[in-house]
């Protein structure tokens, strides 16, 4: 009847056993990480530094065999290196020997990794001071900045309508997102869903789906929906809507997870049911954060709606893209100025509203 543990195990033994298990697990993790680090260094050394920088090849030779050989070398080196318990990964997972060799390897290898990564980045981005200060480049810059300061006012009407369209795309996406986001946020809040297995499964599956949707940028959603429903503001709106729901559901549910447990306990002690508990103990605590997130999101959506226009999501972005394609820089100048102004105003308003409600 009484759930006393039957056999008393000395606590120290349990701690030791757990420690051994953890060490074994960490050792495997360290091996995998070491293999990866060695593999990464070799690939970077070969392709970026040797082929591109030293030999200055335009087309990089590529063969799976070569990569395979490099991988094999890394596996062998990685395993051997981890076994000595002096590698960087051992240090990271806390299983390294505490001696001078470890200290030196860790320091030297970290520096080595940092430097080759920086150099590889330099090579990949084709970093060049010459390009920035070439006379041709300076001329181009002058053209663009000059146009910015002499905007073509002839298209002001069109641009105004387009930017209003953008603001409405953002507004509608934000407004429509509210009810589904609210609903989803309750089902993705851990503290409301941990009571039983079914609820927890729903929580888990929804979280994975939302994470997936959120990890796809609105720009890509806009491309998908411009194929689905046709190019235009509607595609842009749906793209924003989808992303807004997924991101705000996360923020909302985190707000729910951070509420005080006390009122929930108090209301449930009165014999209230689940819906009443949520209405009286959860909702009043999350109303303001929700409002604040939503207003902030509108502000973000105005900026995103501009970008989405570039791939056919309608509004000012689409207009910008057209004039840029025609190289009509004075028109581009006007559009850029208008976007900057609207974004600045939205940013200011949303910050003010959020200040006021807290």
């Amino acid at each position, binding site marked *: 009847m009484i759930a006393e543990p039957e056999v008393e195990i000395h606590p120290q033994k349990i701690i030791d056993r757990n420690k051994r298990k953890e060490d074994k697990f960490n050792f495997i993790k360290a091996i995998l990480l070491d293999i990866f680090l060695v593999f990464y260094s070799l690939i970077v050394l070969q392709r970026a530094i040797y082929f591109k920088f030293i030999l200055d090849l335009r087309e990089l030779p590529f063969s799976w065999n070569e990569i395979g050989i490099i991988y094999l070398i890394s596996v062998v080196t990685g395993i051997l290196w981890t076994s000595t318990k002096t590698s960087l990964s051992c240090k990271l997972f806390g299983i390294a020997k505490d001696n001078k060799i470890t200290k030196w390897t860790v320091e030297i290898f970290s520096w080595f990794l940092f430097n080759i990564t920086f150099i590889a980045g330099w090579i990949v981005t084709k970093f060049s001071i010459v390009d920035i200060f070439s006379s041709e480049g300076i001329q181009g810059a002058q053209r663009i900045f000059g146009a910015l300061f002499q905007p073509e006012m002839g298209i002001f009407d069109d641009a105004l309508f387009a930017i209003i369209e953008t603001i409405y795309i953002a507004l509608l996406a934000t407004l429509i997102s509210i009810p589904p986001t609210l609903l989803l946020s309750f089902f993705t809040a851990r503290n409301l869903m941990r009571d039983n297995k079914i609820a927890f499964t729903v929580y888990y599956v929804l979280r994975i789906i939302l994470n997936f949707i959120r990890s796809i940028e609105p720009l890509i959603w806009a491309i998908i929906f411009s194929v689905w429903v046709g190019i235009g503001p509607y595609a842009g709106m749906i793209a924003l809507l989808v992303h807004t729901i997924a991101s705000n559901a996360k923020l909302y549910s985190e707000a729910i997870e951070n509420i005080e447990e*006390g009122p929930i306990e108090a209301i449930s002690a009165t*014999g209230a049911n689940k819906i009443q508990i949520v209405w*009286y103990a959860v909702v009043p605590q999350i109303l303001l954060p929700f409002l604040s997130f939503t207003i902030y999101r509108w502000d973000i959506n105005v900026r995103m709606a501009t970008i989405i226009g570039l791939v056919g999501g309608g509004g000012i972005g689409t207009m910008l893209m057209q004039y840029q394609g025609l190289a009509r820089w004075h028109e581009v100048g006007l559009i850029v100025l208008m976007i900057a102004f609207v974004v600045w105003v939205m940013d200011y308003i949303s910050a003010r509203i959020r200040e006021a409600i807290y």
Partner: protein
Amino acid sequence: MILEVKNLHKIYNSGTHALKGVSISVEAGEFLVIIGLSGSGKSTLLRCINRLIEPTSGKVKFLGKDITHIKGEELRKVKSQIGMVFQQFNLIKRRSVLTNVITGKLGSLSTFNSIIEKFDKEVINEALNNLETVGISEKAKERADSLSGGQQQRVAIARSLMQNPKLLLADEPVASLDPATSNSVMHYFEKINKDFGTTVICNLHFLSLVRRYATRVIALKAGEIIYEGLPHEIDETWFKTIYGEEAEEVEIR
């Protein structure tokens, strides 16, 4: 007998063995005070009694009925008959005092009516009466978080009175209040106990309050009952056993 707890054990998922075979029986009308250090299992015991948490083993009988493992509708019905007051008051901060008091009645209101916040005249009057009982009816329209700590705790008491509780649990109700306010809040528990005959089980820290209000005392240490008796019987030796050798009694008047 209103409450009977038999050989109660509670082991949390974290492995903490919070209650180790606690047995108490409480007669109707008693003012039972539970004392003990933080972590001695006082709060866990109260939460097992009104089943905010489920005991691991043992038995809890309320009004002769076994409530140890009941669930759903049945559990809510039992909860609605046991009032509870907390150390941190646990009011809904942004709502009015009156709404907060009415939430005590949620167990017997329909879900729909409670969500559109349509309350009968009777319920509102009952809430005002209960605010009267704890002496702050003039604050009914104010926001709960604009009140002082002592006033908030009185609102919480009024909320529990809405349940017409047979049993009132209080989890260190004065631990976050200053000494003078503590005494006045305890005074309301006494009033409820004497005037309405409500049984009170209260966790307390200050022995002077215990001596003044309790009709019986139980001391918990590491999840076990180490003392049971009348408040004036706790002497220096017992005090040191309950609170440890280092402890010294602090007077609160």
